[in-house]
């Protein structure tokens, strides 16, 4: 039963000594070890039990915080001292981080218990978690289907109740899309809200970390720990962090919701559209008003993102060269051979494609046509949102055009890129967004996307929490859990 409880409920149970953190941790470790979802790359049994013991001591002496003793799954993109941090890639398979990411450090300081490192698409590139060096993750709702990606292990772990919460990162939808496909809650904060220090970079101007949880209330609790300025991250923003739980109970009467007409055009599965619209109706019945808005450049988000992100990744990943850490090929005959073979043997095919697209788009003679052009279109995309937020408080729509698809159903990169249509634009603009469970289509979960203006995480969490007070989609669990 313990695994079905939310972080909020577990926190109360620990404080009231209904169970100990060690009991809780053992329960989740047992569940993980019996699971066939492949949600974890590394399970840190001993570390978890030690952290749980330390947490129990704090609970006993009255110095516990809200997350003390709560277990979680940590996406394998966050550096963790002494624990393998592979980012789902062969090239980092030998990498035992000598330092902690700021997010890891903050979660440790909050006395949480790390169950292990969650599986993910290689170096966060993918929307299905099929691109992991450690094999695909299965969707707990239907094990023939993908959990989404790149934070697929994180989402599957929470949906399969293998962990009360998980961390994720979102460069083009990697928190929201797996949350949607697995029927859980996930938030991608405003760019600069959560430190990127020690988070293995994919596309530095787009990457942002956030939690995946059962409920918006849980997400608020974890955001309270994850968010905040960090002088080790040059793009971290020095801005006060509110208590994200403070306004959860506010009424959303009068909330102005915008529905972008471009998000409801061709390509959207009708079952997903109906489910999303039913959720919007629910918000209306709670006193929100709904109007149409337009994001005319939103279709351009796909080519723009798939230029900007590969350019940044080709530059970022040049550091993985077999010299200082990570994988090195056997018997390199010279330095060139060392670089070539370490990288070619270490990276998977999708990562190589993106590196090459980026290297091409940044090369002499092509920079203006691709990278510079994309950065200009990015400006147009961000202006669209600026205009829309003059009229509305929150933008709502689908997260993904379909529910979770079958493992192995996409054979080429481009068709999978196209499925990112509703999530990419807000990363390009740097805006916060959420996915919350909105219902089911063909027995698979459908997420509702909430997009807010800069720094409006509080409002998004408030709206999501109010919705979850009126509906029980977030409390549904896959069969057998």
């Amino acid at each position, binding site marked *: 039963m313990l695994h079905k409880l939310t972080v909020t409920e577990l926190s109360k149970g620990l404080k009231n000594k209904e169970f100990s953190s060690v009991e809780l941790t053992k329960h989740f470790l047992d569940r993980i070890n019996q699971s066939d979802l492949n949600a974890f790359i590394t399970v840190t049994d001993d570390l978890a039990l030690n952290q749980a013991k330390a947490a129990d001591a704090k609970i006993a002496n009255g110095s516990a915080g809200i997350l003390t003793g709560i277990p979680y799954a940590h996406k394998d993109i966050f550096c963790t001292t002494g624990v393998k941090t592979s980012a789902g890639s062969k090239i980092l398979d030998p990498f035992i981080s*000598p330092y902690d990411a700021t997010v890891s450090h903050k979660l440790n300081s909050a006395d949480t218990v790390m169950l292990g490192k969650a599986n993910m698409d290689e170096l966060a590139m993918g929307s299905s978690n099929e691109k992991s060096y450690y094999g695909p993750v299965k969707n707990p709702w239907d094990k023939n289907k993908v959990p989404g990606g790149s934070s697929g292990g994180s989402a599957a772990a929470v949906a399969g109740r293998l962990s009360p919460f998980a961390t994720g990162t979102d460069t083009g939808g990697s928190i929201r899309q797996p949350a949607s496909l697995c029927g859980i809650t996930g938030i991608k904060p405003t760019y*600069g809200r959560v430190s990127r220090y020690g988070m293995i970079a994919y596309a530095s101007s787009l990457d942002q970390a956030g939690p995946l949880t059962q409920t918006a209330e849980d997400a608020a609790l974890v955001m309270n720990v994850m968010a905040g300025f960090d002088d080790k991250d040059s793009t971290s923003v020095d801005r006060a962090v509110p208590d994200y739980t403070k306004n959860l109970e506010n009424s959303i009467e009068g909330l102005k919701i915008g529905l972008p007409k471009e998000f409801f055009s061709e390509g959207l599965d009708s079952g997903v559209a109906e489910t999303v619209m039913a959720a919007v109706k629910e918000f209306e019945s709670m006193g929100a008003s709904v109007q149409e808005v337009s994001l005319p450049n939103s279709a351009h988000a796909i080519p723009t993102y798939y230029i900007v992100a590969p350019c940044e990744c080709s530059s970022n990943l040049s550091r993985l060269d077999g010299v200082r850490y990570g994988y090195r090929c056997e018997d390199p005959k010279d330095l060139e051979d060392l670089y070539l073979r370490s990288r070619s043997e270490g990276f998977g095919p999708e990562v190589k494609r993106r590196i*090459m697209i980026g*290297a091409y788009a940044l090369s002499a003679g092509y920079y203006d046509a691709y990278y510079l052009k994309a950065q200009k279109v990015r400006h147009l995309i961000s202006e669209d949102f600026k205009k829309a937020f003059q009229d509305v408080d929150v933008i709502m729509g689908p997260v993904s055009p379909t529910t979770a698809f079958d493992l192995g159903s996409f054979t080429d990169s481009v068709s999978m890129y196209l499925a990112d249509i509703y999530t990419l634009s807000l990363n390009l603009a740097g805006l916060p967004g959420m996915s919350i469970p909105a219902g089911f289509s063909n027995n698979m979960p459908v997420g509702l996307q909430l997009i807010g203006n800069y720094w409006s995480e509080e409002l998004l969490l408030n709206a999501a929490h109010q919705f979850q007070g009126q509906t029980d989609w977030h409390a549904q669990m896959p069969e057998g859990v």
Partner: protein
Amino acid sequence: MSLSEQQVKEIAHLARLSVDDGELEQTTAELNNILGLMADLAKIDTEGVSPMAHPLNMSQRLREDEVSEIDQSEAFQAIAPQTGQSHFLVPTVIE
């Protein structure tokens, strides 16, 4: 605009990735398929639009130029594939 196999070889070299002759045709087709997606970019009117360098339009934060990191070279070198005399070792570059 589509890439030739020769261009793909050059790009692979820029990225320090090897593409075997056996993979060249398929890799070229895949990259061209992706670049096909980008063709629409050229049609978008961006006259007078400035490139967006940062999502929040912020400039780089500066700090005093003082030492902020402690020396952790041993810890960092402990995870390296090959080291010697506090250096990262690679195959001989200069005979």
